[in-house]
């Protein structure tokens, strides 16, 4: 029996901005269905790492393989088509549009309908129906007709996750899904995160340790563009090196 292919395999990923090393020979594997949290202090290179994965930055060296297919050199939108999808730290939505249309446009793009100019009635209806369903899975089906600009911030975050899921990702990068969400809405985000489809490999970038410990099966600690350690949450919080650089000497 052969091992199942890795959902994501990163090897020796490096990037410098002049003398500043922002990614230093990063190796990272994600199995299908993985729930891994990427943590690290400010400036550790988390955002750079996400930009390298998604193609907004090109690495100086190293490889990225998504389900065995190499991604380096592909444009961001091509990587999305292949199943590497991200959400944004700050709500990145079409604020003039309704929640449903935000998701439906993504569905149309996935299905290749988004080039349709003349004949589209049936297909667009199907996109909208699917969008409605995605929003209902997030328990915000009732907000579908509202402009996303009018939605509470927590619901905007859920729309963003609904969009990401509608693209049928193999690997999902969640960039601080709970950032900026007021306390009374965070529970909803937690529940949604807990219900995400089991077959998707998820890398969550998060500052909130509460989210990390509830969600992640594994923690990767990034410091100065380098992976300091990888292990189960308990090991991470017990590791003296991690405590020193990130969690603080007295916390946890």
């Amino acid at each position, binding site marked *: 029996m052969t091992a199942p292919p890795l959902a994501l395999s990163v090897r020796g990923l490096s990037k410098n901005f002049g003398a500043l090393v922002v990614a230093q020979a990063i190796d990272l594997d994600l199995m299908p269905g993985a729930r891994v949290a990427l943590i690290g202090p400010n400036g550790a290179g988390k955002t750079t790492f996400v930009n390298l994965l*998604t193609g907004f930055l090109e690495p100086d060296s190293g490889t990225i393989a998504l389900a065995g297919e190499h991604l380096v050199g592909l*444009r*961001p*939108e*091509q990587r*999305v*088509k292949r199943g590497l*999808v*991200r959400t*944004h730290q700050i709500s*990145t*939505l*079409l*604020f*003039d*549009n*309704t929640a449903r*249309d935000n998701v439906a*446009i*993504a569905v*149309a*793009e*996935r299905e290749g*309908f*988004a*080039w*349709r*100019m*003349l004949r*589209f009635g049936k*297909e*667009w209806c199907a*996109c909208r129906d699917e969008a409605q369903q995605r929003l209902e899975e997030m328990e915000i089906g009732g907000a579908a007709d509202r*402009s996303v600009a009018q939605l509470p911030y927590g619901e905007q975050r859920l729309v963003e996750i609904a*969009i990401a899921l509608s*693209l049928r990702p193999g690997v999902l990068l969640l960039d601080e899904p709970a950032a900026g969400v007021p306390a009374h809405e965070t529970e909803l985000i937690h529940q949604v995160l807990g219900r995400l489809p089991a077959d998707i490999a998820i890398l969550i970038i998060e500052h909130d340790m509460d989210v990390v410990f509830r969600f992640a099966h594994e923690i990767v600690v990034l410091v100065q563009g380098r992976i300091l350690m990888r292990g189960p949450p308990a090991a991470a919080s017990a590791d003296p090196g991690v405590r020193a650089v990130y969690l603080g000497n007295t916390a946890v």
Partner: protein
Amino acid sequence: MTRGRVSPGLAAIGHALPWAIVIVYFYAAPDYLSFGTQVMIWILFAMSLDLVLGYAGILTLGHAGFFGLGAYAAGLFAIHVSSDPILGHVAAVGITALFGAVSGAMILHTSGVTLLMLTLAIVSVMSEYANQARGLTGGDDGLQGIKLDPIFGIFQFSIFGKTAYVYAAVVLFGWFLLAWRIVHSPFGRSLDGIRQNPRRMRAIGTPVWWRLVAIYTISAAMAGSAGALSAHAARFVGLSVLSLLSSGIVTVALILGGTRRIYGAFLGATIYFVVQDYSAKISPFFWEFVVGGMLIATVLLLNGGLLDLGPAALRLRDRWRGAAKDGE
């Protein structure tokens, strides 16, 4: 897009209104048909600008380049190739579409002020070329000697402009149907998304550059079609079609009427030329002042152009009623 819903009956009347005016005008103002033709040509031009500037958010001051290219192509085609107007129109549209695709592919990697400057540069080069190439274009004397066969061999172009009027109306209607369809299609929605947030669109896998080149090409063809109409209607092409002023006028007309509604082009271009016509009669220098004042008032008071006048009045009424109620 969340906009107020109106009843289907009212909407149908609204949709029919511009075309009813086109038909009524034909019978009511036979002596002013060339004015009507000019307005329809500029409606088409403004509509083409709406597709790129309004919907896709492509900042451009170079749209006169396509209008002018279409006009010169149609004029030169009539002089050197064939005096069939339909054939000439199709050729002009094809050439401007090609030029739109090539120039768009080169400049649409950029955005914002950079893009604006590049569009400006392209139209300036075109204008100067047309000015210098006197042998081809007639330079600042304009392109003269355009002769056209009757359309379908039946409808003769005449000084009264009946044929040109109907020809312009039919072409405008055709492009209107296409534009209406496009802006409501998934393609049009993706353009609207690109205007709002290109980063979001790339994150859902949209090939942003290809989309922009596509709409730029369609819009160029539409502007070229307007230019061809103007060359055919006047049987003359002046150097001013390629001027920055033309780009400015079409932008002012569009913003005056309202962007991103298709009908904004109809209202804006009509108002612009009617006001120009009337106030120029009062004083030849006065009309720019009037148009300028209208533009400032529109941009400051109405976020959706003059098309927003109705909704804005309703809002004002509601507020006034609310205030009256509070006062009781």
